[in-house]
């Protein structure tokens, strides 16, 4: 319970400990703590930035999707239009072709008819001459009656 040199010894020890703590312990620990504080702050800021960027990206993605849908819609409607156009064109072509074929057939038939008529006319003339010659029982000069016959043929 006596106050003695221990007092001074303890003071010196205390001062030395405080000095050591001040020089070698406090600064590195505080530096680490400050650095971690900064790191965490940076991390939080980065996270916030990331969230904002993600939001932006989501918005952009939605826009792009919307645009793509619009384009797809356009393309589809265009294709539909073009399809019906093609069908219409094809129909028109078919109709035209049919008409053409029909006309050609008509022309051929007419030609055929004319041809047959011509032939028939010739044959009828021959028959008429033959018949007349038989009726007259004489030789009729074909050449002499040529004009007559032609006239007859044209009347048929």
């Amino acid at each position, binding site marked *: *319970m*006596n*106050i*003695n*040199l*221990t*007092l*001074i*010894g*303890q*003071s010196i*020890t*205390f*001062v030395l*400990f*405080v000095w*050591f*703590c*001040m020089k*070698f*312990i*406090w*600064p*590195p*620990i*505080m*530096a*680490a*703590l400050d*650095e*971690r504080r*900064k*790191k965490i702050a940076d991390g939080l800021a980065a996270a916030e930035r990331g969230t904002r960027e993600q939001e932006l990206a989501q918005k952009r993605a939605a826009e792009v999707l919307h645009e793509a849908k619009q384009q797809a819609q356009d393309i589809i409607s265009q294709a539909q239009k073009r399809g019906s156009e093609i069908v219409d064109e094809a129909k028109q072509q078919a109709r035209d072709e049919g008409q053409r074929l029909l006309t050609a057939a008509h022309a051929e038939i007419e030609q055929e008819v004319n041809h047959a008529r011509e032939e028939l006319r010739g044959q009828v003339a021959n028959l008429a001459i033959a018949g007349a010659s038989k009726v007259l029982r004489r030789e009729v000069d074909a050449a002499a009656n040529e004009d007559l016959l032609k006239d007859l043929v044209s009347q048929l």
Partner: protein
Amino acid sequence: MSSDALTSSEYIKHHLQNLTWGKLDGSWSFAHNAAEAKAMGFMAIHVDTMFWSTVLGLAFLYVFRKVAKNAHSGTPGGLQNFVEMIVEFVDTSVRGSFTAKNDLVAPMALTVFVWIFLMNMMDLIPVDWIPGITEAMGIEHMRIVPSADPNATFGMALSVFFLMLFYSIKNKGIGGFTGELTLQPFESKNVLLQAFFIPVNFLLEFVSLIAKPVSLSLRLFGNMYAGEMIFILIALMFSGGFAIGLFGGVLQLGWAIFHILIVTLQAFIFMTLTIVYMDMAHSEH
């Protein structure tokens, strides 16, 4: 119990006797009893107090230095986490009470807190364990709680006090410092009245100034001394037979658990008052 030959009062006295090495009759030697230690006067040193406080202080410095050397800002490991928790606790206390800028205060607060805490914690070791071992080794006296030795607490409080004086004078100048001591709390525009007030003020302020280190050290010393005394008294019960011994064991457990609170609280109070005193040295009233 160290021995049956001792009476209760001898046992208590034995436990309260520091291992004193001092100058007695012209030569340096260990004191064998309280009278010899008293006769040594100021020229003596409590070897046990010095030893245990230094060991505990070095243990504190070693652990904290180890962490400080490897301190990194990544995910802290167990020990680093623990140390950082204490450092941040001290740092928060300093930031809360100390408004000026001084790089000394926070490390000093940390040292005060941890060192006193460790020294107080020695109180929780059963009173006969370490003295029993040292007695077997031939050392007569051993007090293992340095903070129950007024030399240790006064040593710290005086160091804090001198730092306080130093920073007071450094920040306010000698004029400012003496002004603080003499020109308040009573002041007057009247020169004569003021001249009369100066000694009154000085008396009041000087007492309150001196009271700071005294109360700081005596508070810690008183708490630890009383705690140690109660542990010694409880230890006396162990020699009173099985039933009383068992009761003593329960008491010891209860007191030890309660004492953990006192140990921490006293370390915290010493630290906080150190910070507050340093703050007073830096700020004008």
